């Protein structure tokens, strides 16, 4: 019948399998890059690199040399060192912010999806209100009032990511709540707590994890945008976003000052997107679902 045929035809072009095979190499490369940049960020203090804030006034905008492997910036600071310390900021904010969304949004979404009723209506309403603010505008405004600092930025972006996590967790929970194993647990007299933690959480965890990785990518971009505008992590701490912003001034004489951090940031964001997307494709057979 018609419905069957449709299913048959989509089964033939299962996007998951195709995607999986195609991204195989890319996935490994992405993982490699994330590990590399992560290790560099963690070991920044121990690595044999100069301080990212030391200025070499005689060697401004110097091309790569033995002393400065990737050259120096407009104040004569070592680019490689700044890139590595910049990775620290990007990754710290990028990994910590979504944790806030993951924990709060994930819990809210699961509770809303499981219990429904008044609580669900309230949660969905709250999410709608938070989504009524264009994210970047919200982030800028709140950091402006709170004051610029890495902690504040992490908190703000974290709060901003709550609605998306809530939606994912609620959708997955809704799709599971009526399934046999949950109903079975309920009829066996399991407590709500037990069902939520033992039956639902393990199933919600994987989609949330995939979404978490995509959220990391988004967060790195948002932090970069704030710093690019000079409204992120305050100087002189190096951040990829502010490096791009500063490099913009000398685009005509030393374009690499902007392109190097841009390249690092692009590679990192892409890597998280690739990993997250692969994970999502594994957990969700529907094409383009999110």
């Amino acid at each position, binding site marked *: 019948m018609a419905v069957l045929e449709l299913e048959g035809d989509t089964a033939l072009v299962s996007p998951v399998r195709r995607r999986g095979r195609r991204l195989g190499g890319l996935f490994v490369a992405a993982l490699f890059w994330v590990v590399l940049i992560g290790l560099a960020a963690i070991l920044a203090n121990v690595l044999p690199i100069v301080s990212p804030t030391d200025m070499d006034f005689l060697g401004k905008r110097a091309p790569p040399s033995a002393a400065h492997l990737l050259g120096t910036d407009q104040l004569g600071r070592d680019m490689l060192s700044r890139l590595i310390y910049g990775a620290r900021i990007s990754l710290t904010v990028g990994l910590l912010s979504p944790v806030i969304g993951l924990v709060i949004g994930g819990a809210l979404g699961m509770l809303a999806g499981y219990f429904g009723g008044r609580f669900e209506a309230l949660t969905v309403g709250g999410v709608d*209100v938070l989504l009524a*603010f264009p994210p*970047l*505008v919200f982030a*800028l405004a709140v950091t402006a009032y*709170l004051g610029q600092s890495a902690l504040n930025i992490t908190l703000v972006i974290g709060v901003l990511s709550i609605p998306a996590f809530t939606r994912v967790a609620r959708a997955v929970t809704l799709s599971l709540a009526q399934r046999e194993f949950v109903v079975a647990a309920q009829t066996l007299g399991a407590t709500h707590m037990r069902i939520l933690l033992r039956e639902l959480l393990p199933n919600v965890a994987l989609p949330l994890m995939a979404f978490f990785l995509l959220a990391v990518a988004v967060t790195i971009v948002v932090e970069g945008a704030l710093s*690019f505008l000079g409204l992120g992590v305050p100087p002189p701490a190096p951040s990829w976003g502010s490096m791009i912003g500063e490099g913009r001034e000398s685009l005509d004489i030393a374009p690499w000052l902007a392109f190097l951090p841009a390249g690092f940031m692009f590679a990192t*964001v892409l890597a998280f*997107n690739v990993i997250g997307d692969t994970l999502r494709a594994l957990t969700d057979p529907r094409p383009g679902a999110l």
Partner: protein
Amino acid sequence: MARFVGRKLLHLLPVLLAVTLLTFLIASLLPGDLAYTILGDQATPEKVAALRAQMGLDLPIWQRYLHWLWDVLQGDFGRSFRTGETVLAAVADRLPVSIELMLMAEGLGLLIGIPLAILCAVRSGSAIDRFLTGLAFGKLSLPSFMVAILLIYLFAVTLGWLPATGWVPFTEDPIGNLRSFVLPALTLAFAEWPVLMRVLRSDMIATLQEDYIAMAKAKGLHPARILLVHALKPSSLTLVTVTGINIGRLIGGALIVETIFALPGIGRLLVGAIYARDFIILQGVVLFVAIGFVLVNFIVDMLYAVLDPRIRHGRA
């Protein structure tokens, strides 16, 4: 249709109210006292106390909110304590620039995204489809401030074809005005097309497998008509929703792009207010943008109903 609009309107009001509350609460996050911020370091306690009383800052927070909301409802969004300009005047002044920018960007984004999506859907699984979906995926990782830098480097610095900054009013120099919008609009369009393409492509692939497409083919219709009328219209429903959601990102993007290309729009007004610590303007603009965003999404919902007769007739 009337029922549909009514239901949506009923939902709209509480959201708008909550948006004002949240905006107000964000503004009250300011550590310390707005009066000190306004008067600066040399403020005497007496002056501060006087200003606080004048601004109503000594009232309890809920009273302050109600006063502020009352003002807002009367169209008084506040006044910059630096320039004396009202928020409304500042916004009215900058709005046309932002709207021109966003319309051009969304238009360009659709102009690139729709044909590519159709191409991919028709040839789904082919080399060109895989290439374009891969490209779109990669593009999602390239934020607009990087695209801006690349475009400036290419078209302004290296080739010298287009200006990187320098906005002129349309009434003074229409060509110059449009030229100053090309790079900013392109930057934003580059952020838009991958999203639009991905969404439309997957919907279109699903639609092309529907029975009614087989039926349209069996009727011997022209392939172009099948694609553009029979397949595109039902597939564009999600596209419209996404366009609505996208506006949030577009506003964020416009903020960055206006700052980079020195376009005097709302985004630049907001960033400028932050640089100058002009908190009244900031609060007013944030509220204005959020309300605008909610309203645009409301309009998009309406558009949805226009496109889908099933919703229009209250079935869904």
